[in-house]
């Protein structure tokens, strides 16, 4: 059987029946993405690999935690990855109080041409990825920054407001408007026929 042709939910169904080949296919499809997200948050290759390892072994150990009725597998996987990465970032921040962690507030959330091709990933989320990147490109910088500080930096709206010297209400509005545009981009891409 060619596992590369199976949808995520089909792979997860097999994975739930302890099909190691399905697990490997999931890893091949999302390994680099999970690693890249973790790396974006923690800024350390080894730590990012540890996080990715944790995330995938969680998928293997507890596949039932993914509920198909609650959305796409990749959404759940990235949420788990982000949360695990933020936990690690905070933990490291406590341990390395005087050591600068990679800044999530540098205005660089949009890929700048150094993205590598990943055929396995491209088969499932290429339209989504392109749509998101397009949406971010046209997002006002202040909205993009607020989203970036929250998602990759793990900051609350209040912390963002403090950091930027802006009223809390302004930050809330930026996040809300920015995310509305992101959601619109995703909906349009799904309408475009992402598999």
């Amino acid at each position, binding site marked *: 059987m060619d596992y590369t042709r199976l949808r995520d939910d089909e792979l997860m169904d097999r994975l739930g029946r302890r099909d190691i080949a399905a*697990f490997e296919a999931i890893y091949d499809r999302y390994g680099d993405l999970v690693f890249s997200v973790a790396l974006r948050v923690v800024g350390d290759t080894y730590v990012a690999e*540890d996080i990715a390892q944790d995330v995938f072994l969680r998928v293997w150990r507890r596949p039932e935690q993914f509920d198909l009725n609650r959305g796409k597998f990749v959404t759940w996987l990235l949420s788990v990855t982000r949360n695990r990465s*933020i936990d690690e970032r905070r933990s490291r921040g406590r341990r390395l109080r005087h050591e600068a962690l990679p800044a999530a507030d540098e205005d660089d959330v949009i890929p700048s041409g150094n993205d590598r091709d990943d055929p396995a990933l491209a088969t499932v989320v290429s339209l989504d990825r392109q749509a998101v990147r397009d949406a*971010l490109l046209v997002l006002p910088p202040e909205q993009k920054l607020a*989203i970036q500080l929250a*998602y990759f930096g793990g900051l609350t709206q209040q912390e*963002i407001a403090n950091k930027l010297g802006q009223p809390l209400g302004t930050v809330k509005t930026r996040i*809300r408007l920015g*995310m509305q545009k992101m959601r619109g981009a995703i909906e349009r891409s799904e309408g475009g026929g992402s598999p």
Partner: protein
Amino acid sequence: MMSADCERIREDLDAWALGALDAADARTAERHIASCDDCAAFVDAAREAAASVALSVPLQAASSSLKARVMAGAAILDEPREPVRMRRLWPLAAAAGFALFAGATAWALITQQELGDARDESSALAGVATQQSVTLATASALVMIMEEDRATHDAMAAIVANGDATGLAMTGTDAAPSASGAYVWSRTAGRGALVASGLPSLASGKAYCLWVVYEHDWVVGGLFAPESDGSGRVIVEDLEVDAEMAGRLEGFAVTIEDDGPVTKHTGETVLEASVAQ
């Protein structure tokens, strides 16, 4: 009809999905979400939008050792499972170039993860792993050995739990070209472990001997007999070495010796590995 609560919560959903609400507001949102079917669709949409931010990251290639670690970890965690015969796995490992130590590292990292408190050691060992050619086959092979041999498993765990754990892949000589193995050790633990496979059967009265090879001396690590499938393993503990006399560590070797007290290597070498100077 949407309640005032729903309206207020939905305004916060994007921030909640991004993890940007403070703890008290997040708890309020989550309590509402858990009990409000009307908001469920909005929650899922917010989650998806938040996750989409992650899709924007530039893709970086994870190291090949990460896959080995992940797959070896899955093999460990997969219980119950059918035992996999080493005889089937070892040829795979050999064919893959036999980076067995990398497999050991993979296993070590995952075991430590299960213990839940070895972040620093993991990072250190991962650094070693990335320097070596790692294959899924070798990682899986080692895991299976460890699972089937509790003593070696435990000894290896004690060794690799130390930050200075390191290891070498051992290759068969012309006398035993099918042999391969790895030696993993930690100075802090004062222990080392050899795992080998493809060893030729021995004549009666003979045994394999592991040697720790120093510049001026070969020190006995231990004698062992091969299993019927050609595998072998030996644990080395508290090696007594006069560092000044022995000189620097040069490597490891396995020779065929008489089965009895051994003080000097006289037999043919079947496995060897050199420490990079």
